[in-house]
């Protein structure tokens, strides 16, 4: 089974973070929410692997100890 990568894997994390914010910069809340939803779908399709996606959904879900 393919493993979801949960260790640092981005070449230039600050650059990516800045790109992500920039993409949202001029958008209002509704537009930003829609963009996030589209982004998730684009990335999910690129990953393509159901096992990895299942692990990603679990990794992103609220942690019980933080609730």
């Amino acid at each position, binding site marked *: 089974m393919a493993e979801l990568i949960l260790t640092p894997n981005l070449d230039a994390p600050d650059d990516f973070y800045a790109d992500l914010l920039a993409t949202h910069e001029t958008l209002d809340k509704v537009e930003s*929410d*829609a963009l996030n*939803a*589209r982004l*998730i*779908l*684009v990335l999910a*399709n690129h990953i393509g692997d159901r096992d990895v996606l299942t692990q990603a959904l679990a990794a992103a879900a609220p942690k019980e100890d933080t609730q």
Partner: protein
Amino acid sequence: MNKIFETPIYAYKHSPDQDASTPVRHKVIVVGAGPVGLAAAIDLAQQGVEVLVLDDNDKVSFGSRAICFAKRPLDILDRLGCGQPMVDKGVLWNQGKVFFDDREVYGFDLLPEKGHRRPAFINLQQYYFEEYLVNRVRELEAEGAPIEIRGRNKVSAVGTHPEHVVLEVDTPDGSYNIEADWVIACDGANSPMRRMMGLDFVGRVFEDNFLIADVIMDADFPTERWFWFDPPFNRGQSALLHKQPDNVWRIDLQLGWDIDKEREKRPENVIPRLKEMLGDEVEFELEWVSIYTFQCRRMEQFRHGRVVFAGDSAHQVSPFGARGANSGIQDTDNLCWKLKLVMDGKAPEALLDSYDTERVHGADENILNSTRSTDFITPKSEVSRLIRDAVLDLAEHYEFARPLVNSGRLSVPCTYDGSPLNSADALGGPARTRPGSACPDAPLGDAFLLSKLGDGFTLMTIDADAPDEIEEDGIVVKRLALSVKDDPTYELKRRYLGDNDSAVYLIRPDQHVAARRPGFDDNQFRHAIRRATGKE
């Protein structure tokens, strides 16, 4: 001229049963003469089982109702001797368009697989579907088959006994009692039989209303399925346009939950909505308008002693995906051969429990699929709408998102994986023909495979030797000897052999695979026959 659905086609006639001093006993009584009840009756009568159909009215379906019939039911209707008129009359379609807001998001072509006698689906009004089934009943009657339909015979009470069922039946001449060894209840989603027997029907209610309008128009819309999400003419809701025969178009408009149904149904309210959708210049006439709500639910078990439920009386789904009538026909296809063997004493009553196992599995699959379609079409929360709209936005620009668009996943046959009637797969052939699968059709020169399978058990050999007939404990299995050479297109090989050079399939009377092996083995196939008839 009256519409076919306004004309009594099995008018009430006084039956001698009504004057009998003691209730007359029948072999099988089918309650309900809709698509499912009629299919059950034809199936049984064709096999020589005496069958009586009771219906509370005397006409075919009022309005078009179920309009999309899938390949598997068409294959079953071929076996029942009435597939051809359906296909001749029905509208064939493969293309469609999806709209979101005010724009076309994409078009699709379902490109049906070649090498099948029947198309993937046809559109046909339920009233024609029922009319052709009634015609087939009349044909069987003329041939002397033991089949009868009694119109305006409404079951008003049920008494269940270990070996029979007593029904009280209301008619224009008063009520009478009648008995049956077996009863098949095909009396629809609101099944009075189910209610009279006090049986459960649990599931999920969807808080939504849909307006269905059938309009007659000479419009030059193409023969395609058009589906709108959140269109300007029906804000926040969905809409569907689909063609039926005779220039009748089905229009489905989602209305939401909090509406006045009687008001919405009035022509003065329906017509402006349709004009907004079709454009002012289009001339049309309303044939039929109805408002429906729906639920996704099923009975916990479909068989209750000598009463067996089939079709909507046993399970109800949302209309998206055409899984109502289509799955009901598959119920009776599954049930009738089993009932016949049990009635003839050739199989134990336990064989009927496999009807429950297999068709409950089928119902769950349909409920799952239609629930998912409903969740996509009518998002129930802010976030589900957000994700749904994201899919539709992306689908306009990128092909990857189109498979996520769910405006109904059209009915495909259910594979009975894990059924107690299956023998382990000893061939390792193509997955689509593994034990439990409905046999896919294949071309054989000028003919097709499914039309050669018939009503009984078949031993299909492909480039393998086997006896012409085996009999195991009363079950006769006839061989159908084929070779990959019979099909120059190699579909037979692709669908049934895969990488193997030969195969032997044991095929049930409902054309589902019970067992398969690379070659004939007398002992193994006798086990498989016993297993497929509930004896192991």
